[in-house]
């Protein structure tokens, strides 16, 4: 069969399947609780799968394997950081957030603080983090489709980005949280199966001997044993070593501050189900990141260096699909074509599920926090009105993400996602942790930590080599990079925590302290928490 016909067919199948799910889910979406939280009626296991589907993004599937294929061991840090981060969510955040909030990240702050400023701050930060994250996914989608159709044309990539944007707006506007969740569950299953098939085929090439696989990767990389040792990407200088530490911090502290992950905890009936869903997610995500190790080193061992190295005209974000083609029999073979098409379709499903989750998180926050909580706070807002605003917001955010992704095409997508993690860890995590554990914490502390962390993280990225000064930068021809690190976490995360502390101790807010009593009882026992909706 003609490869392109097969590929197109599989892509369209993924799209048709997800559209079908969305229409089916839309018939069950009646109230605001349905739209924002799927009626809180998913089981722990279903939500665990959906969390996996929301979290294992194109950055994980395409970006990590690309980073390992290119830089060897240093790329593995992503896998480890992305997984260990779940312990923060499990131990400190998931259950208490489920009990204290309703629909958005801001709810648990607004629980005891001055509504208007904290909802505005949390909403701004939700939208910024989600847009950073969306960029990464859409850049992945553009490269993927260009590879499959065999044309490296800018126009085609841009068209793909617009198409993905239109689909994600559709999922959210029509299906709400219920549609998005089912799309994520289906994607998680497809991704696990697809990755497992490639992993088995790669290991089979080396008689299931991991050491032989690593040896072949080291040899084929041209770097020798150094390829298997830390330091190839980050070991050159003190600055790059600190950059590595900064990345490590952002990864481990970012997850529990990602708005699209946090709102998933609201989709289950109780805090115990939220815990169960995180436990399932840790199992699933852990297994997946172990597989990325084989995918990355497999790509290093079996692909030609010029296929993945951007300096030689390759594309590091395509290591996984190209590896699928190689283990299926190589370029031109039927097996290779089938596997390439399958894995590309899985990657496409991955991207669609994640962008839907991100769009949902940010449009929910705009409608529930900004529109209902701030703009219309003195008048009653009907549920229909609120959901209508959420749908409009999904359009606008989708359009902004499309416009910004077009110039970001050359960046590694795992790296772009790491920036989203740094912003989440700096702006959101300090406020969430302080709010749950510190009675004294108050409105000024919350707004200072959110805005301070956000401005520090985004500002440092703007003045970093990511944006200007290097051939790989967003603006390679100019140079205003006065901050040497690629990842701002090591500076911006402490700034977020410090400003939260300073804002709190310089103001008095007895009402917020008083309401902490209720927050604490509710968070730990579930007394008075939002209930599941039964239809």
């Amino acid at each position, binding site marked *: 069969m003609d490869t392109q016909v097969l590929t197109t067919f599989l892509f369209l199948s993924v799209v048709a399947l997800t559209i079908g799910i969305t229409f089916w889910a839309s018939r069950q979406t009646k109230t605001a609780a349905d739209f924002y939280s799927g009626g809180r009626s998913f089981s722990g296991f279903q939500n665990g799968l959906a969390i996996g589907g929301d979290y294992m993004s194109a950055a994980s599937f395409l970006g990590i394997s690309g980073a390992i294929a290119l830089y060897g061991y240093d790329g593995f840090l992503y896998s480890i950081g992305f997984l260990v981060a779940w*312990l923060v969510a499990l*131990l400190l955040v998931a259950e208490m957030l489920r009990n204290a909030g309703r629909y958005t990240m801001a709810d648990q702050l*607004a629980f005891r603080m001055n509504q*208007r400023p904290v909802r505005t701050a949390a909403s701004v930060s939700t939208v910024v983090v989600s847009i950073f994250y969306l960029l990464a996914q859409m850049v992945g989608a553009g490269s993927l489709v260009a590879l499959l159709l065999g044309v490296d044309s800018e126009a085609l990539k841009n068209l793909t980005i617009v198409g993905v944007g239109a689909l994600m707006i559709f999922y959210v506007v029509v299906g709400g949280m219920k549609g998005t969740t089912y799309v994520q569950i289906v994607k998680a299953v497809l991704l696990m199966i697809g990755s497992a098939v490639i992993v088995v085929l790669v290991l089979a090439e080396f008689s299931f001997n991991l050491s032989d696989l690593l040896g072949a990767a080291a040899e084929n990389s041209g770097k020798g044993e150094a390829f298997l040792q830390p330091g190839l990407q980050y070991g050159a200088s003190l600055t790059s070593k600190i950059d590595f530490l900064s990345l490590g911090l952002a990864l481990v502290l970012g997850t529990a501050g990602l708005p699209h992950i946090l709102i998933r905890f609201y989709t289950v009936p109780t805090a115990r189900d939220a815990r169960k869903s995180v*436990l399932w997610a840790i199992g699933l995500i*852990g297994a997946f990141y172990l597989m990325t190790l084989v995918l990355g080193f497999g790509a290093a061992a079996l692909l030609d260096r010029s296929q993945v190295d951007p300096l030689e005209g390759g594309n590091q974000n395509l290591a996984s699909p190209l590896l699928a083609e190689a283990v299926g029999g190589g370029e031109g073979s039927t097996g290779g074509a089938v596997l390439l098409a399958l894995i590309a379709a899985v990657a496409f499903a991955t991207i669609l599920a994640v962008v839907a989750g991100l769009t949902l998180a940010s449009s929910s926050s705009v409608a529930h926090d900004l529109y209902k909580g701030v703009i219309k706070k003195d008048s009653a807002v009907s549920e229909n009105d609120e959901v209508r605003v959420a749908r409009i917001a999904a359009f606008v955010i989708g359009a902004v993400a499309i416009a910004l992704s077009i110039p970001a095409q050359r960046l590694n997508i795992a790296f772009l996602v790491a920036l989203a993690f740094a912003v989440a860890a700096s702006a959101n995590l300090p406020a969430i942790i302080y709010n749950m554990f510190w009675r004294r914490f108050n409105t000024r502390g919350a707004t200072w930590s959110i805005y301070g962390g956000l401005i520090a993280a985004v500002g440092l990225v703007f003045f970093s080599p990511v944006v200007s000064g290097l051939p790989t930068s967003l603006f390679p021809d100019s140079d205003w990079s006065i901050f040497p690190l690629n990842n701002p976490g090591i500076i911006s995360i402490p700034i977020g925590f410090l400003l939260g502390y300073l804002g709190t101790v310089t103001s008095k807010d007895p009402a917020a302290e008083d309401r902490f*009593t209720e927050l*604490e009882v509710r968070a730990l026992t579930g*007394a008075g928490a939002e209930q599941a909706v039964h239809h």
Partner: protein
Amino acid sequence: MTDQEQAARHHPIYDRLHATPEFAELRRRYRGFVFPATIAFLSWYLLYVILSSWATDFMSTQLWGHINVALVFGLLQFVTTFGLAWMYARFSAAKLDPLARQLEAEYREGGDL
């Protein structure tokens, strides 16, 4: 700041529950597990990141075949993450959930909301 801006004063049942010895015990047990556990896993993770940058010779020691210390340490991070998640699941089901259920039942009986 106006009164409407701030969330309303809560129901007195929360003060009563907050003052019970059961609640104090629930909070003590919860914090007694998660605070040390968080410090432990974050330190272990940061140790790994720092060794990867500043002890590359040690991390590059080959153990068998092409498997080196860095890879084994990385895989151990997976093992400790799975292990701690499992320990927390057991701990919370045995030590936290019964107390939380009891307090939540008291809330349902006493708080006419």
